[in-house]
């Protein structure tokens, strides 16, 4: 209940564009990540496909609608259905994001930013504890990309995540692209961010592409619609060098999805970078 054993491997998300290839079980992946909400249904084709994929690969459940930052608490129906899926899938772990998505009246279906205050930290910790109790297992939470900071902020995001993990016993899903995106948007150091995190709590890393500044205004936007850029690869190498235990790495691609071989080639690059960050003796090296 209180520990998630590290898992080493490289995976992709289950997406319609290449699900037939995954159904064959012949794609060289160590795990497959699903968007939990897409499978929180009573029955039908999506669950049948998931069952087939599960027969070939370990599965990670990654959610987008838990809304652990919601001041109005968690949705009981959501938790029930998440638990039902978790029991069905028996995933390596269940993850979601440090964000909020809902009020009692509306749902944004986007990962909205939290003011980094002690009040928000208390709300987040209460909600995480409730979710972990409901699931009967610790969860992972992902650092978000963000486009707004709040005048009332009292903590850095890395201090917020560290306190959250320390208080609740949750683990971290480190999205390296999100660190880069938010660092660029808000002018903080990505290296300070990495150095400030309790990296021993990291179990998974996400990599993705983003829309550069200028294409949609004066922000870098986390769009998962293109390949990972060089500065993010460098940050990934730094993270791999700093983390002293195995982690699972995944490339997220949700739009303009290329042919599967291109995604697999990108995943091979992640393998190679991660491998280079570790000496043959298993010692991490500084980058």
């Amino acid at each position, binding site marked *: 209940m209180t520990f998630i054993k590290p898992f080493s491997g490289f995976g992709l998300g289950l997406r319609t564009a290449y699900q037939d290839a995954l159904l064959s079980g012949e794609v060289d992946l160590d795990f497959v990540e699903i968007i939990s909400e897409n499978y929180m249904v*009573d029955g*039908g084709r*999506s669950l049948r496909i998931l069952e087939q994929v599960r027969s070939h690969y370990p599965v990670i459940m990654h959610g987008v*609608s838990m809304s652990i930052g919601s001041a109005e608490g968690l949705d009981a129906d959501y938790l029930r259905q998440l638990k039902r899926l978790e029991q069905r899938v028996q995933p390596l772990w269940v993850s979601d994001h440090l964000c909020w998505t809902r009020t009692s*009246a509306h749902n944004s279906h*986007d990962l*909205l930013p939290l003011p980094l205050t002690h009040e*928000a930290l208390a709300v987040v910790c209460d909600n995480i504890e409730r979710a972990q109790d409901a699931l009967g297992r610790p969860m992972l939470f992902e650092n978000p990309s963000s*486009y707004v900071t709040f005048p009332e902020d009292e903590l850095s995001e890395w201090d917020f995540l560290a306190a959250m993990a320390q208080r609740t016993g949750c683990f971290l899903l480190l999205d390296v692209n999100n660190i880069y995106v938010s660092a660029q948007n808000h002018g903080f150091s990505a290296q300070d961010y990495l150095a400030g995190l309790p990296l021993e709590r990291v179990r998974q890393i996400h990599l993705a592409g983003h829309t550069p500044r200028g294409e949609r205004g004066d922000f870098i936007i986390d769009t998962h619609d293109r390949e990972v850029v060089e500065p993010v690869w460098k940050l990934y190498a730094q993270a791999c060098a700093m983390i002293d235990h195995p982690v699972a790495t995944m490339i997220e691609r949700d739009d303009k999805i290329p042919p599967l071989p291109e995604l697999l080639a990108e995943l091979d690059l992640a393998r190679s970078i991660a491998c280079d960050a570790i000496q043959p003796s298993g010692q991490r090296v500084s980058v």
Partner: protein
Amino acid sequence: MSDSSALQRAQKAFMAQVLDENTPPPDQWNARQVAGMDVYRSNYRSAVVDAVNSTYERTRLWVGEEAFKQAAIHHVITHPPAGWTIDEAGYGFAETCQALFVDRSVVAELAWLEWAMLRTSRADDVDPMTAQGFAAATEQFEEADWGAMVVEFLPGSTSGTVQHDLHAVWQTISAGDGPADELEKALESERGCIVWREGDRPVFMMVDAAQARAFAAAQEGRSYGEICQMLADQTSGNQQPSDEALQDAAMAAGAMLGQWLNEGLISVVKTA
């Protein structure tokens, strides 16, 4: 948790800005924060419009890209989603189409059909009753048992009455053809449409309106005997149904039952 917590107030205000660009930002926000909010608003708008697009693909093809886009945007502004599943962004879109495409009522009916097909596609997996299963379940029935029999359908199945030949509309779209004037015209009399799932595949069939109403009544738990009576009442107007009308209704109900069984719509039969 207190209703008046600072975080709760801040989140309500933030959500109001996400949903409506005319909501003013907090006084202490600078231009950078206002610009950042535009990113969230744009992300929200595209996510929910994409969800509506995905659910109502055929409705979009029927009305055309631009008209559909305007309808979808109108829908998400007037019906911001409340539930945790993004599919719910499409909830009530048929009513939105009814209001927006006043002279093209087939559009709302097509949207109703697509919503029904989405619902049934995610319903519980239940095997339909076979003819042999039905025979076994009713083998010991006496006359009173038939009257008291309640029919249950596959989860997610639904029915409605419509004014257009949705089967022809569907086929036209499948063939890649645009809307045809004759299919936009209402039929001389209303029809019924029943939606269910065959294996993984949502399907529908056009039936007469009486059958669609009988299907709905059965879903509400009305017994076979009550459905026979309902059919007899429908053909008899304000008059007490004659014996002949009752006999015709029983035959019609029997034919419907046979069709539901043959199509694999029935999951269970039992006596009330």
